C-alpha cells in the first residue's frame, strides 16, 4: 500500500515572527524556514509503517514555491521514496485549495492512506486533513497519537479534550498527526546525499485543474496587544499580598 504525506514549508518552530511594516502580513525576509513539525511527525509515521512491511511506498507532496522542493528533499532524506511539488507562486494557498490539489494528486497516485499534520504552525488552520477526507468521501482520524494498520482498516487512538478516543477506519482513509505520535528522526548525511537522486516530479495547480483563488481576504495583520512588564516579588507571602490587592483571590 502506498502512503501519501503532504508536507508544508513553514517558519521554523523557534522563530518569533514579526508583523511587516505595512501591516499586511508577516515579515519573512531572511527568516529560517523548515518542514512544519506536524508534517515531520506524519513522514515519520509513514516511514515506520513502511519499515514494518505494511506500506510499499511513501510519497511526499508539497504545494508551494520552488523553495518547497527543499522541504520535499527533507522528507526524501528522512526516507520517503518520491516527491511531488505542486508549484505555485501564489502567496497564500488556503487549506480548501490545498485539499482540492491533494484530491487531484490522489486521483493519479491512488494511495491507501494519507497522513497529514494536524496543523501548520504558520496559519494555525487545522483544516486540510478534514477537508481532504470530506472531498474524497473517506473516513478521518484527526489528532492521532497511535496508528495500527491492518490490511483493510486502520485503528487510530486520537487525542480529544477529555483524554483519548480510539476509532477504526475503513481504508482508504485520512489521518492527521498529533505531537505524541512519534519522535521524528533526523536525516543522516548519507541519506541527505541519497535524497538528491530520488525522483521529484513537478506539476502545477493549472495542470491539475484546480482554482486556488483565496476565499478569505486578509484585510490586516497586526501585532497582538502587548502585556505591560510585570514586577518581581520577593517571597511567596509578598506574592499573596499582591494578588489579594488585585482582587483575583
Amino acid at each position, binding site marked *: 500500500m502506498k502512503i501519501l504525506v503532504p508536507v508544508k514549508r513553514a517558519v521554523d518552530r523557534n522563530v518569533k515572527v514579526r508583523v511587516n511594516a505595512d501591516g499586511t502580513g508577516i515579515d519573512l525576509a531572511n527568516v529560517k524556514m523548515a518542514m512544519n513539525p506536524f508534517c515531520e511527525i506524519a513522514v515519520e509515521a509513514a516511514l515506520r509503517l513502511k519499515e514494518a512491511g505494511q506500506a510499499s511506498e511513501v510519497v511526499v507532496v508539497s504545494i508551494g514555491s520552488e523553495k518547497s522542493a527543499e522541504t520535499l528533499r527533507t522528507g526524501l532524506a528522512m526516507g520517503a521514496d518520491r516527491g511531488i511539488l505542486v508549484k505555485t507562486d501564489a502567496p497564500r494557498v*488556503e487549506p480548501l485549495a490545498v485539499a482540492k490539489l491533494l484530491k487531484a494528486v490522489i486521483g493519479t497516485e491512488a494511495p491507501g492512506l494519507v497522513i497529514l499534520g494536524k496543523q501548520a*504552525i504558520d496559519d494555525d488552520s487545522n483544516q486540510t486533513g478534514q477537508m481532504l477526507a*470530506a472531498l474524497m468521501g473517506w473516513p478521518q482520524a484527526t489528532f492521532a497519537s497511535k496508528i495500527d494498520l491492518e490490511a483493510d482498516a486502520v485503528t487510530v487512538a486520537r487525542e480529544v479534550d477529555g*483524554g483519548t478516543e*480510539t476509532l477504526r477506519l475503513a481504508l482508504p482513509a485520512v489521518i492527521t498527526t498529533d505531537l*505524541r505520535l512519534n519522535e521524528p528522526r533526523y536525516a543522516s548525511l548519507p541519506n541527505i546525499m541519497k535524497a538528491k537522486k530520488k525522483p521529484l516530479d513537478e506539476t502545477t495547480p493549472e495542470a491539475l485543474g484546480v482554482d486556488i483563488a483565496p*476565499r478569505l481576504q486578509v484585510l490586516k495583520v497586526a501585532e497582538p496587544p502587548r502585556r505591560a512588564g510585570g514586577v518581581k516579588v520577593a517571597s511567596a*507571602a509578598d506574592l499573596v499580598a499582591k*494578588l489579594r490587592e488585585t482582587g483575583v483571590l
Partner: protein
Amino acid sequence: MRTLLIAEIDASGLNEATAKALTAAVKLGSPVDILVAGSGDRAAAEAASRLEGVARVRLADDAALAHRLAEPLAELVISIAADYDAIVAPATAAGKNLLPRIAALLDVMQVSEVTAVLGPDTFERPIYAGNAIETVQSRDGVRVLTVRTAAFPPTAEGSAAAPIEAIGVAPTPPLSTFVGEALTTSARPELAGARIVVSGGRALGSFESFETVIAPLADRLNAAIGASRAAVDAGFAGNDLQVGQTGKVVAPDLYVAVGISGAIQHLAGMKDSKVIVAINKDAEAPIFQVADYGLVEDLFTAVPALVKALDD
C-alpha cells in the same frame, strides 16, 4: 438568513463551550439555532434551549450519532445546511475535527479560532502561535467558523426556553467505527473554563511532584491543573492538560506557571489570562516577560510556601 451553532456535548451534558460560542454566533446578527446531535441528549437540548437569544434547538437523536463521529455528523449538518448562511462551532477538539469537513462539503473556506467578530463576514483570528492577529473577510456565501472559547464570555440563561424540534437522521453506511475511549475524570474545575489555572512544567520532574506540589496549590485555589508540553511528554500529566498553541487555549482570571520556561508555543495558550504569575528559579526565563508577578525561587520551596501563605 440564520446561523447554526453546533453544540458541544460531553459525558455530563451541554458543555460551557457552547454558551461561549453562542456569544460569538449572536454577533453575526442573525437568529441562532443550536444543533444538538447525539444519542440520548435530550437534557443537553433542554439546557441549550434555555440560553438567552437562541431561536430554536434542533435535536438529532439517533444511535448512529452516539459517538459524534465526524462523517455522519457532517452528513447531518449538510442535510439542513440550506437553512443557514453561517455555521459555527466552538474550537474544541470536537469542533476542530468536524467543522472543516462540513466547510469542504459546502465548498467554503473555514475561518479557524475566531477571537473577534467585527461584522457578519469579518473576523479576527490569531496566526503564528498568536504572534500576529489576522483580520479576514470571507467571500464565501456561507460562513463556517470555529470560535476560540477563551475569547468570549458565556451567554447566560434567558427567561424563556426556545422550542426544541426533532430532526431526522438519514441512514448512511458507516466509514468509521468507535472502538473505545479513555477519558480522565477529575473533581477539579475543567481546564478550559476554570477561573484559576495552576500549570506545571518540566521542572516538576515527575508525576508524583504534580500530585505533591501542584495539586495542593490547585486545591487551595479551587483551580484547574494545566501542564506544558514538556511535562505532558515526560508523562507527568495527561495530554488533556496541555496548554498552548497545539493544546488548550485558556484565559482564566489567574494563571500560575510553575517551572515553565515560557516557550512561544506555551505562551500562545495562556497569554490572554488576566493575571499571570510565574515561579521559576531562572530570572531570565521568558515567562517573566509576560508575568504580572514573578517569583524567582526554587519551586519546591516556593509552592509549599505559597500554599501556606494563602492560609495565613
